[in-house]
């Protein structure tokens, strides 16, 4: 395999190099094949498999190197175009599996026409014991007053790296919801860049993760506010165990002209074991006066009072901490709109399944 290096997940504005947060460097990054993908649409879903959108103009969170690699490895990919409002129970589920050693790359292009809706579930699963990389480039174009819900669930174990790279662009009053579950002890890289062009368009990004072992999670989420009255919310919460490493980059970028835009980003991280490394760099970039941007982060051990409360109810400390860590993931799982899949992911994440639901 050709030895190739990629620079991904770059901060929109650089900071001190000694922090090693400006970007991620990926070695052996030649992608020469596609991953296996299965597509499961619900019976009622009415979508097309072609789109006239020029997706090359939409940037992604991982950035140009990943974009170029994706276009080269899987130029056709899968396209899903929703021209209408779909029934609430309809969605499409795509399952990308990696069962052999090596690097695989796929592309997925999504479009919603004006007033249309679409819900897409994407799973990236790597077989245990294999080595290599699995990458998926997802780009989305949202028409006026349309809504796209993208739920991604990714899991890999040590030796296999996953790359989940998203780019989105919105027109007026469109809403792009991204919900992500990041699981397993393989190294994982997530990027997401949403350009809020249309007035009053919106994005909501919810990320839940649980990392353990010696795994690395490297994230780069960007909400770029171009249009007036645009709204963004980025929330990432999770737990780190053993000697795992996590780097969260989150950027709210208010470009001049984004009048009355508002953005918020929040991070909540449990550091469960000694030996974990948590890096967080939440940027607010502001070239417009009339905006409101906010960031909040809470990083550390589980709250003593909460642990004490649970212990006083007869729950051993280790279980109490486990329960609190689970709650971080389940808060994201519970945002999944379809009951059957929600239950499936509850089981996958080791959460409590409410049979009465």
């Amino acid at each position: 395999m050709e030895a190739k290096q990629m620079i991904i997940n770059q901060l929109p504005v650089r900071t001190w190099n000694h922090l090693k947060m400006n970007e991620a460097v990926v070695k052996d990054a030649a992608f020469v094949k596609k991953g296996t993908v299965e597509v499961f649409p619900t019976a009622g879903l009415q979508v097309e498999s072609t789109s006239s959108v020029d997706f090359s103009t939409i940037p992604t969170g991982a950035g140009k190197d990943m974009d170029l690699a994706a276009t080269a490895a899987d130029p056709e990919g899968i396209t899903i175009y929703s021209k209408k409002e779909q029934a609430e129970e309809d969605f499409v589920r795509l399952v990308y599996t990696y069962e052999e050693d090596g690097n695989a790359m796929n592309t997925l292009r999504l479009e919603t026409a004006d007033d249309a809706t679409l819900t897409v579930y994407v799973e990236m699963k790597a077989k245990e014991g294999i080595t290599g990389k699995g990458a998926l480039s997802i780009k989305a174009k949202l028409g006026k007053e349309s809504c796209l819900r993208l739920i991604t669930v990714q899991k890999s174990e040590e030796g296999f790296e996953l790359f989940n790279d998203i780019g989105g662009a919105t027109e007026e009053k469109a809403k792009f919801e991204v919900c992500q579950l990041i699981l397993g002890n393989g190294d994982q890289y997530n990027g997401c860049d949403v350009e809020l062009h249309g007035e009053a368009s919106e994005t909501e990004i919810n990320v839940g993760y649980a990392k353990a072992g010696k795994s690395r999670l490297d994230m780069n989420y960007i909400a770029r506010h171009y249009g007036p009255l645009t709204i963004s919310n980025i929330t990432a919460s999770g737990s780190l165990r053993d000697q795992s490493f996590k780097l969260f980059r989150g950027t709210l970028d208010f470009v001049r002209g984004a009048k009355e835009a508002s953005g918020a980003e929040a991070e909540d991280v449990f550091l469960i074991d000694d030996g974990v490394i948590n890096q967080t760099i939440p940027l607010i970039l502001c070239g417009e006066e009339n905006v409101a941007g906010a960031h909040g982060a809470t990083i550390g051990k589980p709250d003593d009072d909460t642990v004490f409360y649970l212990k006083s109810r007869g729950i051993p400390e280790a279980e109490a901490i486990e329960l609190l860590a689970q709650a971080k993931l389940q808060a994201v799982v519970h945002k999944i709109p379809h009951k059957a899949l929600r239950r499936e992911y509850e089981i996958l994440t080791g959460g409590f399944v409410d049979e009465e639901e």
Partner: protein
Amino acid sequence: MEEKTYVEDVDRSVYDIRNEEGDNVYRIHQGLTKEIVMKISEEKNDPQWMRDFRLKCLDIYNDLKLPNWGADISDLNMDEIATYVRTNTKMANTWKDVPKEIKDTFEQLGIPQAERESLAGVGAQYDSELVYHNVRKEVEDQGVIYTDFESALRGPYADLVKEKFMTIIKPEEHKFAALHGAVWSGGSFVYVPKGVDVGIPLQSYFRLNAAGAGQFEHTLIIVEDGAKLHFIEGCSAPKYNVNNLHAGLVEIVVGDDATMRYSTIENWSKNMYNLNSKKAIVGKNSKMEWVSGSFGSHVSYLYPCTVLNGENSHMEFTGITFAGEGQNLDTGLKVIQNAPNTSSAVSTKSISKGGGICTTRSEVVITAKGENSKSAVSCESLMIDDISRSDTIPAMDIRTNTADVGHEATIGRISDEAVFYMMARGIPEEEAKTMIVSGFAENVSKELPLEYAVEMNNLIRLEMKGSIG
């Protein structure tokens, strides 16, 4: 037609007094070469170790690249900067012995008056050398040493100075630390013995009068166990149409059970590149406080750094940055919590107007040794108009599971609701806005001694006119 809220620029007239460079001024050739560094060393009659150190720093400077982050400094051409300029006068310890034009400048800046009223000692640097240094006898009698750096290099504390000089900020840390090591001149040495509480502040004031020159003063402060000190740094320069450079360096050692406060009101002129470095190493049960007001300069890189090496040590940073037209001020802080039970509390505020750019950059690191350490960081930015820019870049690197870190940042404009509330109580709109902006800066001004708080408030004399459009 409604008039947009207008905020007056900082009134700099008092700082723009300038003295023409006469025959009694020695100015080294512009540029940065081995010969120039050797000439400075010769002028200053350096001991051999310092001469060698300067040359080593020059090599490091030449090897290091310009930062690829932060405000653009590509217009700063070292070939156009004279790194050493001095008036042919000896350092005095009474103002009457200071040359009249220099004394008048400091009089207008209010330094002698401040010394009389509220300071334990004053050092006044004019271009590359100290022209005045004095410390009150009662402070001296406590064993406190406050002297110019050149005297310290040769005096009874020479070994201590040699031991500490540029070991807290090493020349390898960045290009402008290396530059400083090569061409430093002037500055102060402060030594506070064990258990001594210097009740009233010491102040060093740095004035760069010469056009196209650099100022590279070195400050080394050692606060021994159980001691307490408040040190104030002031700086200003008149405006020229050529670049000036300030690359001072402050090294602070705080012993155990000690308290150190370092306050700065920085008001360089808008042709100044202010690439300054400050770092404190703090012992157990000690406290390091930074109070910082950044108002001047064309470009600033200023991030006081604190290394909490002692158990139960604490750092507080309170800072405000005001960037107006033509200014790109990249300011913030670093804290490395490297011992158990350390804590840090940070409050930064920035105001951008008239096309000015404020970048608040921070770094909070809690190492694996920092068990049960805490950090709380708050960054607030205010945008006064839509031609300015304000960026917040806070980084956190946490390597122990027992840490407790909270961070919050907000960015926005003057709240319409707050203005409306005050107007509903009979306060005119312009006054309401002025009060809100003044209130925004209040947490910094209340941390300063009264006369400096007044100076700061004068610096950000925000005159609100008309009504918001």
